[in-house]
């Protein structure tokens, strides 16, 4: 259902990015990259809120003609961005939310790997397969 999943480091460089129509990868790179503006903006707006009450899910970042871009930010300012086909109306906010939660859990697992260097690109196979499962679940 998701067409593109990206994990972005605190310093706004990609740790992981994968999209399903691989032939047009660059388009998604651009899309996710520009969405960071909105993420930044949302984070800075949230900054005033209490830290522990903060909602990690950022909601819809922006819609484009064909896709919807959703965002999620962890407490350590690692961002998850998910691009979803906008024709897929079955996808509700709640589902997106749970997908992000799954992604977050998987990311935490990656982080727990003592051989993973925080800040490196994610090459974990487990993470990869989890993302794949999220991508093909419905479509």
């Amino acid at each position, binding site marked *: 259902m998701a067409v593109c999943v990206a994990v972005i480091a605190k310093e706004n*460089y990609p740790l992981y990015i994968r999209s399903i129509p691989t032939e047009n990868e*660059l388009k998604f*790179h651009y899309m996710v*990259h*520009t969405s960071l*503006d909105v993420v*930044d*903006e*949302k984070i800075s707006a949230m900054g005033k809120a209490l830290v522990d009450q903060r909602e990690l899910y950022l909601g819809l970042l922006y*819609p484009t003609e064909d896709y919807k871009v959703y965002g999620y930010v962890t407490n350590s300012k690692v961002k998850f961005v998910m691009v979803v086909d906008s024709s897929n109306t079955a996808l509700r906010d709640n589902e997106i939310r749970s997908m992000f939660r799954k992604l977050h859990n998987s990311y935490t697992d990656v982080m727990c790997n003592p051989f993973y260097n925080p800040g490196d690109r994610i090459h974990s196979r487990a993470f990869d397969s989890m993302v794949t499962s999220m991508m093909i679940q419905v479509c």
Partner: protein
Amino acid sequence: MSVPDYMQCAEDHQTLLVVVQPVGIVSEENFFKIYKRISSVSQISVRDSQRVLYIRYRHHYPPENNEWGDFQTHRKVVGLITITDCFSAKDWPQTFEKFHVQKEIYGSTLYDSRLFVFGLQGEIAEQPRTDVAFYPNYEDCQTVEKRIEDFIESLFIVLESKRLDRATDKSGDKIPLLCVPFEKKDFVGLDTDSRHYKKRCQGRMRKHVGDLCLQAGMLQDSLVHYHMSVELLRSVNDFLWLGAALEGLCSASVIYHYPGGTGGETGARRFQGSSLPAEAANRHRPGAQEVLIDPGALTTNGINPDTSAEIGRAKNCLSPEDIIDKYKEAISYYSKYKNAGVIELEACVKAVRVLAIQKRSMEASEFLQNAVYINLRQLSEEEKIQRYSILSELYELIGFHRKSAFFKRVAAMQCVAPSIAEPGWRACYKLLLETLPGYSLSLDPKDFSKGTHRGWAAVQMRLLHELVYASRRMGNPALSVRHLSFLLQTMLDFLSDQEKKDVTQSLENYTCKCPGTMELLTLPGGPTLPPVPFTKLPIVSSGLGAWQPCVWRMSLLLCGCANSFLDFQWVQGDVCEVQLMVYNPMPFELRVENMGLLTSGVEFESLPAALSLPAESGLYPVTLVGVPQTTGTITVNGYHTTVFGVFSDCLLDNLPGVKTSGSTVEVIPALPRLQISTSLPRSAHSLQPSSGDETSTNVSVQLYNGETQQLVIKLENIGMEPLEKLEVTSKILTTKEKLYGDFLSWNLEETLAQFPLQPGKVATFVVNIKVKLDFSCQENLLQDLSDDGISVSGFPLCSPFRQVVRPRVESKPVNPPEGSKPGDPSHVKTLEAILNFKYSGGPGHVEGYYRNLSLGLHVEAEPSVFFTRVSTLPATSTRQCHLLLDVFNSTEHELTVSARGNEELILHAGECQR
């Protein structure tokens, strides 16, 4: 209305539009000189009232936009100033005619017009005319500003009269229906007497009066009128005009809240002239009072008298939050009309500017997002570029740098769209450069040398590719080479093998035409582009060393030098070596040319090397050589290469894989050089590893025990300096063997007699090698004999034991000859020695420097005789016995064995005798 003005901001609603145009042939330079002076008069305080008029000057304004003047009066061209050249009175009537033609274009809306004539003198020029001003030339026209002020005042009078006229229309009079161009045909045959229609007319007129009030500097009044208009129009569902009324309301509120202006530069300029915000608010009050004086005007107009209660109250003014809500509403109304696309777009732009000031980026981005989707009629390419650039600018304004970069890039691509006949590669390139910060990409490779690359590689790579392509099409191969090498350098980790090949291929193609250099490249500022402050930005590589060799990582081991740098010296005029370990990460063979050392401190002639590294090679040592030309301390701080035609200087400091930041060597004065050659064959195997000293050559010789051989060493002076002094020492490495006598001996005097040795001359030096070793304990036989502890101890004492011993001994007689064949390693002993030649001469000698040369000597000594069998025979006396030894001559020569008893035995080669 088709051409959107992307620069519009909310304040423009209060301005009067004046078009300044040249007529006939006026040079651009002159025109803009005057235009600049005219536009400096952008605000005027009208005398005897405290109102301020703002003027917006345009030198180009499409007449079809003028047709929307009734809709929003700031779109209406109210003033026209024409500038013309006229040199003779004869041309005058014609010029004047042209002025009138020009006036016709905007005729319907013009309040007043002026003609500035330059160059004409004489009779005509002396006639006092209000609409024409004569100036002798473009320099001598000090009164231009005054003229403009007068002109604006006359505009104000017309405006004021219109305002009062409209505001006080008698209810009995029929209020004309104002409409926008595309509406005209919709109202044909409409019942003009219906209440609905009347209300519509009233509402629109109210809005129009509001516009006029705003322009006339009566902010509070305009707010009142807009409010009334909104109510009227809402009741009749006249959405387009309702939108306009709401927008007017917003504009007025914005002007009230943000006297500093929202339009950036223009706003700032305006602010300089205007007074403080508080004062600005006061300034509007008189206008409000004016309306109060004439309340009848309102009531008689058929407007609900209740609204008049609001007059003068700041409540009329929208709060900042409301402004945005109302903008949203207005835009949603506009969007109902396809033909009002431009209005909608402009409203979006204005709203974004307001939001940018309010720092509400999220909402601003929504407006912009909406603006992106507003579909205007088919845009020309130029308009598209303009549109994308402005979107990019606005995104930048609200702090969305990435989005801004994205649109800028789109604009850049639009510049060179295939549909354009003449692609603007320069513009494209310039725009692309501006996108770099948005993609957090700097063109200074220094920023990339630290640690791993972090960023949006795919996106950045694309951008770099585009830069390369644009610069190539621009006809600046140096730039494209620079970008391409940058791409290769920084993005190497992200390129696939195929891409690597492609990139290098194209780099080679470019460098054929223009070799890559280390110079700073200055960006050319396009002559037709507006000046951008950073056109002189140095884009890449500041001189030395910003350039890592693009293709390989150096893991540098200054072999021998790096670790023990100060342990040795280099000699002036001699070839020195530095060893580097390199590897080629590319999937194909890499040709490196012109690789040499970069040094400082001493004049150094680097002798470049060319090498070819196999694909994906492992560490590969490269020796770089050079000749220091003077003495002193030399620092090796880098190296230079030419790869794919790109010349690069690499400093060790900037290489991540290298720990040292250069190595220092002392260069000493010239010394002679000796080359030695010996009469003995060179040996392949070096001395024992523990030898410590390094030897230049090794020679080896095989000798039999006791043999003496002469080693003739030829000393040839191959240096440039005479050899003056020579000392020879020797050191024997193998010390565990017992050595009898002198192993090496020489007579130095003979050699020294030939000194000083001039360059090219040869001297000989003779060393005698004498091998005299103790092989005794090694022989098996004796070991056998001594193995038997009892027999040995008992041997000299009692003979009965002999019998016991003998069979034992005899049981093995055959073995020794077999087991100890000549040359069998177990019997060969090795002697190793080093001959050290310490010599000096020339200037170096004066300073006390010596050069060392060592000759390794490897001698394999073999025993010359073997005792193959030992046995005893009882002698005549019991106290004695005969010791019988079987002696075997293992050499190829005849030898004499002599014992103490003066017996001599001659053994022939390979012979065994008793």
